[in-house]
């Protein structure tokens, strides 16, 4: 049972390059999320998807895009990376999204991205 997998584990990227962070879940959860966590801070929501085919913007969406072609995969793309996007990126999923009460989120192991 894998839960949520993320790839790559870490990456060093030159500024201006395009990068896609991969996220796959095998729990058949409807909702998926991308967060970034900067040193010593809490998580900030980048984008979310409450079901396949739909996505929404979170707190810090600028510079990032997502797609949700199917239930299992939710890739995050940085079209042209900048140093301020250096962070740890976590993907998460939950059985439901905005429904009350909202279900617990299950997190992947994270991707550590450094943009130089």
């Amino acid at each position: 049972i894998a839960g949520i997998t993320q790839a790559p584990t870490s990456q060093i990227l030159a500024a201006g390059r395009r990068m896609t962070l991969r996220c796959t879940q095998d729990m058949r959860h409807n909702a998926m999320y991308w967060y970034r966590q900067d040193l010593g801070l809490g998580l900030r929501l980048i984008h979310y998807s409450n079901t396949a085919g739909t996505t929404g913007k979170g707190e810090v969406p600028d510079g990032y895009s997502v797609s949700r072609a199917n239930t299992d995969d939710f890739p995050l793309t940085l079209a042209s990376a900048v140093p301020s996007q250096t962070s740890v990126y976590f993907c998460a999923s939950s059985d439901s999204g905005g429904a009350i009460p909202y279900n617990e989120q299950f997190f992947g192991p994270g991707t550590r991205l450094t943009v130089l």
Partner: protein
Amino acid sequence: LAKTTQPISMDSYEGQEVNITCSHNNIATNDYITWYQQFPSQGPRFIIQGYKTKVTNEVASLFIPADRKSSTLSLPRVSLSDTAVYYCLVGEGNYQLIWGAGTKLIIKP
């Protein structure tokens, strides 16, 4: 969007009960209170969720007073492995959650 305030850090000793209090003065009627635990280099892990009064599961208890303006996470008989960052979250749904810096809990032998 309800914001939370919790201590930046706390420390305790093995075998003690630890209580972490979170303040959320502008909590809305539909907001639930959720706590997550995060170990270094790992994603957060759900601990407990509640709306009012008291909730208990196999790892923690959550106490919520009648006015719901605060909540207390109680960890019974902590061990060294409970050293982690604990986040208090308040929101109506997962898309509205604001993650603060959390409380860094250090358990000493």
